């Protein structure tokens, strides 16, 4: 111990000492990427001795983001009740002319293409936006209608205030369904046709300080191209599961649209790409070791987003190293995998922050309170139970593919149903026939059932929430779903009639 102390001079550093070095211009800064290489080459002790600060970065879609603006008072004044910017509804959380632009709020005229994230980007880039507002009118705020064109220069305050950003790590998403699905994890092709992941892995800020020794309320950070602050842990902060999050704030007027971008995820909605970089001061050798974390040390689950439930099935785990290689193995098959956050921009952010510190443009700040390490992330308390498919599923009328159309028609009449499920000798799903198909076949003089069977069948499972099954029916404009098990064996059927009856019962009860 004595010898090491001699070698390193001193066992610890303080933020004040590092800031002194920044002032003098002899601070040693590496990006997380460079730090890993140095530790690999020269070991932790040498790296700790040589390096004062490690910079990190991430640039991903962060939906729980938004901006607070203050418009100043109109004449006569208005106490805004509802407001829109470029047709995007903006929330009115407090007094008269404060507004919050939520990133995922969508334009009423261009939904799914333009939203709150784009409004924030447009304002930052200096563009004019149209503000519209309505109010009920009071004695002190008589105005009831407002329309005005503004830029960011006309605003009193315009700052980013994000409730949840910068997830420490996130899952890898794929899709077991027979159809393409569009999610907040991007476009997922059918039958595990691709996969996506988010987060920068070993470059991620919280991953480089997993015990939050240097990050907390008041930590100065890179935010959207300018200096911002951590103002606490983010919502859904889940430290015990290596899934910490941040709440951040920064002045939008100084931001750069290179590092803050409105985005649209098809059929999901709009969001905001946020660039965040955090400097990790190497206060002790433990932090030097932690900032040497590599992509192969960070593992995340592969999750099946094809199952529309909170507890989506996990199909295995992968490391960020595998993910960044471009392909992973799912069920023994090689599958291409897309990053959703920009790894290139993440590196650029770490580089930019490094340059700022070296040039004396950015000083570190010690948090006044560290991020909590013991909070729990609970699921929602639901006072009403989720209704599952099994509560309305009933026996399906089935037939075999070699039966005559006439026979199937008789079944339809006998059981008074509209759908007959076609199965093989083991009871596995082969297709479906509707009374309409039969009518059409008779009209066209067809005799073989095989000619009219629909083979691409949309299905459900007993433990799927009924709401999800109902959404499938309306999306595909169909009125029944065979219920199958994991081996495609037919267990029953649900129809839109069953759902209508259930809703009727609920309303009457």
């Amino acid at each position, binding site marked *: 111990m004595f010898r090491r102390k001699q070698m390193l001079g001193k066992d610890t550093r303080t933020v004040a000492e590092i800031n002194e070095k920044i002032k003098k211009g002899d601070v040693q800064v590496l990006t997380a990427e460079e730090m890993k290489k140095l530790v690999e080459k020269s070991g932790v002790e040498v790296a700790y001795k040589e390096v004062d600060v490690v910079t990190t970065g991430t640039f991903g879609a962060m939906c729980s983001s938004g901006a607070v603006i203050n418009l100043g008072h109109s004449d006569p004044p208005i106490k805004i009740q509802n407001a829109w910017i470029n047709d995007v509804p903006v929330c009115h959380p407090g007094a008269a002319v404060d507004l919050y632009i939520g990133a995922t709020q969508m334009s009423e005229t261009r939904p799914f293409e333009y939203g709150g994230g784009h409004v924030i980007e447009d304002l930052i880039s200096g563009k004019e936006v149209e503000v519209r507002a309505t109010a009920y009118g009071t004695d002190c705020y008589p105005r009831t209608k407002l329309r005005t064109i503004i830029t960011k220069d006309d605003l009193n305050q315009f700052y980013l205030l994000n409730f949840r950003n910068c997830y420490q790590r996130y899952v890898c998403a794929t899709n077991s369904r027979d159809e393409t699905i569009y999610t907040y994890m991007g*476009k997922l092709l059918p039958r595990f046709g*691709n996969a996506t992941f988010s987060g920068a892995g070993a470059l991620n800020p919280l991953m480089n300080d997993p015990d939050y020794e240097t990050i907390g309320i008041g930590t100065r950070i890179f935010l959207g191209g300018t200096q911002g602050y951590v103002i606490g842990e983010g919502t859904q902060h889940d430290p015990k599961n290596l899934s910490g999050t941040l709440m951040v704030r920064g002045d939008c007027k100084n931001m750069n649209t290179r590092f803050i*971008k409105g985005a649209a995820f098809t059929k999901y909605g709009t969001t905001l*790409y946020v660039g965040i970089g955090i400097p990790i001061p190497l206060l002790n050798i433990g932090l030097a070791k932690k900032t040497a974390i590599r992509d192969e040390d960070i593992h995340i689950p592969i999750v099946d987003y094809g199952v529309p439930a909170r507890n989506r099935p996990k199909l295995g785990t992968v490391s960020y190293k595998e993910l960044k290689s471009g392909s992973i193995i799912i069920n023994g098959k090689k599958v*291409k995998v*897309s990053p*959703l956050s920009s790894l*290139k*921009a993440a590196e650029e952010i770490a580089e930019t922050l490094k340059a700022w510190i070296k040039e004396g443009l950015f000083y570190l700040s010690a948090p006044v309170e560290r991020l909590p390490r013991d909070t729990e992330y609970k699921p929602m308390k639901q006072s009403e139970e989720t209704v599952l498919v099994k509560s309305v599923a009933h026996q399906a009328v089935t037939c075999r593919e070699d039966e005559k159309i006439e026979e199937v028609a008789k079944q339809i009449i006998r059981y008074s149903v509209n759908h007959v499920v076609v199965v093989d000798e083991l009871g596995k799903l082969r297709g479906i026939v509707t009374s309409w198909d039969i009518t059409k076949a008779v009209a066209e003089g067809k005799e073989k059932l095989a000619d009219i069977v629909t083979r691409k069948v949309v299905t459900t499972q007993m433990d799927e929430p009924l709401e999800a099954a109902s959404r499938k029916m309306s999306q595909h404009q169909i009125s029944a779903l065979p219920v199958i098990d994991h081996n495609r064996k037919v267990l029953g059927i649900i129809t839109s009639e069953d759902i209508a009856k259930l809703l009727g019962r609920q309303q009457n009860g």
Partner: protein
Amino acid sequence: MVRILLRFPEKIVDQPIIAETILKHGIPLNIIAAHVDFHGGQVLAEVPSQDIEKVVSAFRERGVIVTIPKLIEVDKEKCIHCGSCFSLCPTGAITINEDFSVNFDKEKCVGSSCGLCVDACPVRAITLTREPNLLVQNSENKKSV
């Protein structure tokens, strides 16, 4: 070179139409991608620009449905190199470089005959565009094979 998409309905799929057209007109066709079975076929081919009209009418005379696929255009100013498009590309036209920048190789792209990446771009940097200065109209029947 111009890319054309040839669709062969079931009733003519057993005929050697491509070979006969090449022989008859002496125009080389470069086949980029093909999927053919007894129900029909779909072939993406490259044709020299100056011969495009002759080739298209020759195929149409034989009952082939000919369309000119739209091309993928990437707006490099808008692209944030997130890579969302990468895993959707079946032809390897989209790759990710060592420095994590996203690279698009127009030569390997099959355009609107695929188009999977277009609606996956979160900043809408990917669009489909018509080949400029092209006089040939697409076939009426656009039903996919």
